[in-house]
């Protein structure tokens, strides 16, 4: 645990944090709203007191109530990993700014998060499905997507395998992408 890092984060980002800073083992966790992602990641990447140049991981999480995008960044200035959780994305239309302007290598990871969760990364030039076929319509890692042999867990609906249940109303997923990328 890096106490100094905690103080620095608290001082720099006190106005955008939506929860307390948590530290456990070698991880420091901050929570922000989706609107502040670009600003916070740019500060962590560029400012000399942080210099978190290494994007270790980017993934989506479906908590069942809201969606999250979780970034792990590393640096040579601190032994800790910083976990930035962009929290509170609405499940019917999750949107978050892309970080490809800092890390071009995040492009495929964002495509993966879009493919698995349907999270729209605004500013990603190539947001299309990466693993699933192009005509696939659902998002497999969402919590309301049940495996065929896992029907006992579903809420009295039986198997809903490969069924489209989560796209925003009146919009095919492809339309959503085109709106996101054209604006």
């Amino acid at each position, binding site marked *: 645990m890096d106490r100094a890092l905690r103080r620095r984060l608290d001082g720099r980002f006190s106005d955008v944090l939506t929860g307390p800073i948590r530290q456990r083992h070698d991880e420091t966790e901050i929570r922000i709203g989706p609107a502040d992602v670009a600003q916070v990641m740019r500060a962590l990447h560029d400012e000399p007191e942080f210099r978190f140049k290494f994007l270790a991981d980017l993934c989506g999480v479906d908590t069942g109530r809201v969606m999250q995008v979780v970034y792990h960044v590393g640096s040579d200035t601190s032994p800790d990993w910083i976990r930035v959780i962009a929290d509170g994305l609405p499940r019917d239309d999750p949107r978050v700014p892309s970080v490809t302007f800092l890390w071009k290598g995040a492009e495929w990871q964002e495509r993966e998060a879009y493919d698995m969760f349907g999270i729209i990364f605004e500013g990603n030039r190539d947001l299309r499905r990466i*693993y699933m076929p*192009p005509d696939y319509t659902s998002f497999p890692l969402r919590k309301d997507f049940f495996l065929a042999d896992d029907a006992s867990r579903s809420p009295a609906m039986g198997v809903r395998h490969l069924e489209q249940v989560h796209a925003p109303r009146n919009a095919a997923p492809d339309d959503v992408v085109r709106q996101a990328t054209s604006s």
Partner: protein
Amino acid sequence: MTTAQHPGSHASADDPRVTLDEQIGVFEPIPPYPPRTEREAEFYTLGDGEMFINIGPQHPSTHGVLRVVLKIRGEQVVDLDPVLGYLHRGVEKLCENADYHQAICYTDPLEYVSSLFMEWAPVIAFEKLLDVQVPRRAEYIRVLTGELNRVMSHIMFVGWMALDLGGLTPILWGFIERDEIVEMLAGVTGQRMLFNYYRIGGVNGDLNHDFMSRLGRWMSHATSQLEAELALLNENEIFVRRMRGLGVVDSETALRMCLSGPNLRATGVPFDVRRPDPYSVYPELDFDVVTRAEGDCLARYLLRMDEIRQSIRIIDQCLHEMPDGPVIAKLPRLLRPRPGRAYAAVEGPRGQYATYAISDGTDQPFRMRIHDPSFVNLQTVGLVMPGNLVADTMAVMASLDPIMGGVDK
């Protein structure tokens, strides 16, 4: 006589109405649906004198099942679009529906060349969730077997890379070394490739006589054998001139592309997870983080060769400092960690293997993210290839050393 087509009948190859093109399935590069993104529209629009060629998904140099659509002008690559997903098995979803012990088994086949690293990351993440203290002997055994696996993986890298460039000898020589290590690890883990050896809180079984005697025999000639094998390529003028200055990535670009592992260190960035964020007993061991400044294919090759030498150093220290004691912590059979989140990264032969696990208090992970370095590293091909020759695509792709099992998850 009219030939009324029966609605259920399929056109056969003998049918004269079926053209030869339909029989062999001609490659249609442009997808049969409207472009989904700006980038896709731009890529699938041909400029003056440009054409598409297709590599894969079944091609020996794609190291698995990868399809790459190349846009070329003459012999030069203008742009390329890798198409993934042919091996996608949805492992993250499967892990959410398995308990903590079962989830580790799913991660093995993702990385079928260095599977110990792929299981190491989730094991550490689960141990963080459970606050388990791993016995020191188990940690040493993990480092010892892990470094053996790294040597094995880098030896295979040399073989594959030479094979992609047209040299058959190194892979045959490499298999001699690899087989000794594989047999050695099979002696202690019971498996030849998908070891499934690390457990939450330790390892499955102590080192045995079979393993130790094989290891001793291998260590006695490992260095000299390796140097002889590397001399095949290091002093081969055709190989060196082909690789030097090809696929250059500078350090800024490498960080921007999220490269990790040998591919990152070959550009001069001394980032090795074992140093800034040490796990296991690496802080107690003496080894160098090797870097090279050039960032080309030759640097990526030579850096991996240096890493083999460092790994042999670490194995030697492990054997001398291995303590006695238990090899696994006492844990209940059914694990229910308290709700929380844990992230663990390990430095593997291809880069940073990582797992982000979320526990909700039940016996199954609520979310288990598996980060594979091959997936991230493979993007760099699209960045460095434009302007190079078509034949160099294989060399650049081989030097990045992707494993498609991990890329497609």
